[in-house]
């Protein structure tokens, strides 16, 4: 056995007591701060549930058509959505979709600026890299407990846990996309007397957009991957069905809801990827430049 060097009990007390203190004195503040997030989630959920089912099908099939100009993907999307409806999973799917959309939107709002700052500041990048590694490798249950303690069970901790889990790829890909912009183009832009802001908005972000979009795609997928865990702390939706399936040993319930998650993943993955490819083709990254 490794010899006892220090008494870890004290360390653990510090952490536990510290958290209790935070929950007692700052809990309300945190909850108030997260309130807009909850509002966003609820409005999106209500809006999507208010839309007629056929409208959502038309919308997603239309998007699929716009992204590929081909009948294959729209057909897949159509069949997938029919499956959700026929299997009585429609409302749960919409709830999951709302959670995923809210988490993705919030992740974009946070990750984009962070990624941009990382691409321009080496010190900040050096600090953020291990933080991102931590966010991606730390088992989600580890931060799920304190988040639930602070916010109480419900939609907010589920949302926050999803955002923590789903943000890192977007931050990384934003940073990478901006740093990979052709230095020759950047130099030419500088030679014409542009300000750093003009270069960021006019050159770097447009040229990094395909990479950033790949990050958004990753974030969407990771948010979907989180729904089962998120449902444990009160997120509802398809994940909750899976959870119930496990709890009641109803294999069919778990299987169908699980397939529903797969359907959502396929729909959003393929549509966002196709838009990314379109964008790449437009700026000539898909073909090799001569």
């Amino acid at each position: 056995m490794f010899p006892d060097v220090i008494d870890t009990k004290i360390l653990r007390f510090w952490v536990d007591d510290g958290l209790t203190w935070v929950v007692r004195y700052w809990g309300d503040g945190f909850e108030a701060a997260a309130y807009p997030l909850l509002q966003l989630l609820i409005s999106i959920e209500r809006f999507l549930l208010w839309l007629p089912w056929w409208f959502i099908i038309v919308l997603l099939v239309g998007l699929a058509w716009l992204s590929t100009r081909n009948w294959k993907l729209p057909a897949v999307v159509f069949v997938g959505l029919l499956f959700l409806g026929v299997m009585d999973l429609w409302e749960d799917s919409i709830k999951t979709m709302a959670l995923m959309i809210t988490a993705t939107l919030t992740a974009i709002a946070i990750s984009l600026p962070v990624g941009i700052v990382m691409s321009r500041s080496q010190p900040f990048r050096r600090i953020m890299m291990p933080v991102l590694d931590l966010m991606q490798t730390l088992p989600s249950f580890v931060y799920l407990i304190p988040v639930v303690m602070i916010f109480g069970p419900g939609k907010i901790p589920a949302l926050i846990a999803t955002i923590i889990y789903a943000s890192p790829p977007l931050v990384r890909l934003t940073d990478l996309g901006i740093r990979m912009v052709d230095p020759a183009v950047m130099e030419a832009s500088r030679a014409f007397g542009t300000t750093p802001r003009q270069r960021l908005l006019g050159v770097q972000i447009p040229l990094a957009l395909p990479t950033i979009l790949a990050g958004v795609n990753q974030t969407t997928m990771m948010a979907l991957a989180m729904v089962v865990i998120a449902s444990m702390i009160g997120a509802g939706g398809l994940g909750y069905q899976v959870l119930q399936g496990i709890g009641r040993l109803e294999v069919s319930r778990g299987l169908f809801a699980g397939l529903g998650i797969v359907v959502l993943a396929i729909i959003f993955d393929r549509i966002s990827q196709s838009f990314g490819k379109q964008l790449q083709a437009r700026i000539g990254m898909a073909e090799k430049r001569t």
Partner: protein
Amino acid sequence: MSQREKYAIEIKNVTKIFGPDPQSALDLLKKGKSKAKVQAETGHVVGINDVSIHVEPGQVYVVMGLSGSGKSTLIRHVIRLIDPTSGEIYVHGTDVLGMSLPELREFRRTRIAMVFQKFGLLPHRSVIDNVAYGLEVRGIGKQERRMAAQRWIDTVGLSGYEESQPHHLSGGQQQRVGLARALSMDTDIILMDEAFSALDPLIRSGMQDELLKLQAELNKTILFITHDFDEALKIGNRIAILNDGAVVQEGRPEDIVLNPTDPHVEQFVADVNKARAIHVHTIMDVDVSESCEFSVPDTARCEDVLPLFADHEWVGVVDSEGNRVGRISARRVIKALARYHKAVTTGP
């Protein structure tokens, strides 16, 4: 100061050292240590070593050197894409190094335009928006800048490609966009960093001809960087040859061809088409008493008069007003072309 304003671009004793502590390396260099020695002792790379260049308004000034000679580093100093370790840089008498950041931006927006070896076009914008880019940065309205851009697109022969994306164009066409983008800035100085080096030889030659034609109309000051000695001879009014970060010879093209002062320059001259480099007026007879049946302008080069000797023993040379300034014979041309070869074959 008045002396200073005479030049469009003046680069004075510029040294650029790359590394974490360039000043200490500079001190060593100033104490007379060689570039190689400084690099061995401090790990600093001397990019440019005490280079001075004067470019007069309306000149096409070519800086020629092989890769690693520091020529691309040098041209970037003129608009401070790179800051020198020591030295002075003036553009029309204005101290470029003394400019604040906003002043520098204004200077880049309004006084100098640049053409790049790798084109540096914005791949997400159409050709016309690329050409209008400099004007857009300058803050000119969409209507006006597009009209100006259209004019230069027509001038460089890209009419009909306005809405194309750059990556759908060939290399030569892309560089025409780069050229039009620089010309649309309407600056009197243009920097060209190996502008034609990435193009196929035939396209390159065509672009050189077009640049000369444009220059005859526009009379800009052009600082042109190249690694191609033939290109330097073809388009340059003056040439500076850079080797290892220092100027080894500077002068008119024919002076360099006829009198290379450095072994490094001799190597270039040995392979060069001298008939193209030497102007007839530098080797003609100034005797104007004899009449000649046929005359060439004094801008003609040896290669232009060679075919005429098939029918004429003497060819007259006239200035731009048509006055006879001299005459030239085949014998003289042959002598001029052969002189250098002899020096090489009997040399040590």
